[in-house]
């Protein structure tokens, strides 16, 4: 089973990377960019076929390792 986890900084948290990328896009001539936030994506390959279990497992992985919920939020997408 394939799953994707997207981890992003909470909105109130400073994102220095996003800020720098936004500046660079602007100076490259992309004027219409009003904001950039950078996050991480984890593509997981899981054994088994139980979707509900996978979802619970991934949630636990996020809480324990993939995200620091003090500053980050995460979203889990399980493929088909």
């Amino acid at each position, binding site marked *: 089973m394939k799953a994707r986890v997207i981890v992003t900084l909470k909105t109130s948290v400073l994102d220095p990377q996003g800020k720098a990328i936004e500046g*660079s896009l602007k100076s490259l001539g992309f004027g219409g960019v009003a904001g950039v936030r*950078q996050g991480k994506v984890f593509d997981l390959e899981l054994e088994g076929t139980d979707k509900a279990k996978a979802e619970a497992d991934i949630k636990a992985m996020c809480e324990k390792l993939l995200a620091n919920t003090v500053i980050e939020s995460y979203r889990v997408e399980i493929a088909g």
Partner: protein
Amino acid sequence: MKSAVILFPGSNRERDAARALKQASGTDAAIVWHGETALPKGTDIVLLPGGFSYGDYLRCGAIAARSPVMDAVRAHAAKGGLVLGICNGFQILVESGLLPGVLLRNSHLKFVCRAQHLRVERNDTVFTSLYNKGQVIEVAVAHGDGNYLADAETLKRLEDDGRVAFRYCDASGDVGKAGPNGSINAIAGIYSEKFNVLGMMPHPENLIDPLVGGTDGAALFESLARKTAA
């Protein structure tokens, strides 16, 4: 020798580089701001210093590679002008297309700062004429993203054309051991096709003084000074 050290926001070894150039040539390097569109007249060598340009955000060197001054650097290189990129400078060179390949995160995923032996692969270039071929030198490494990678075809071309400048090795010159970062073929630095552009991860500019770890890096700057002496 007229040299220009490019200062990007976040560069932090520009003083170290300027000091090495001055020690070798007796002249002060011009410090050129990243927003400039031209290099000082008569520039012999452009040095892209180490550091974390733009915080190394996105990818190391990526944002700096797209700053205005890099067009001037590209034009300088196209005319055969000398360009030396050290550490972040090397990353900027690959991001700007002046050198092939990519520099990935170190294979052990950690920043590494330590003394490191290098083997000088050839001494018939402007950068290395004062070394011996095969000489083992000790310089410093200090980087988190120095893991050089290129596709098989590019790699073959680099090797066939003798464009590997330095390889990581041990004190006896053996490159078999793992380098500091997992680079393919233990590559620590490469030349451009015309051998006028050199990118390298290690820091020869920090090894130019017997009191501060040794002088094995000095010959690189002295080679340049000799070649470009007016």
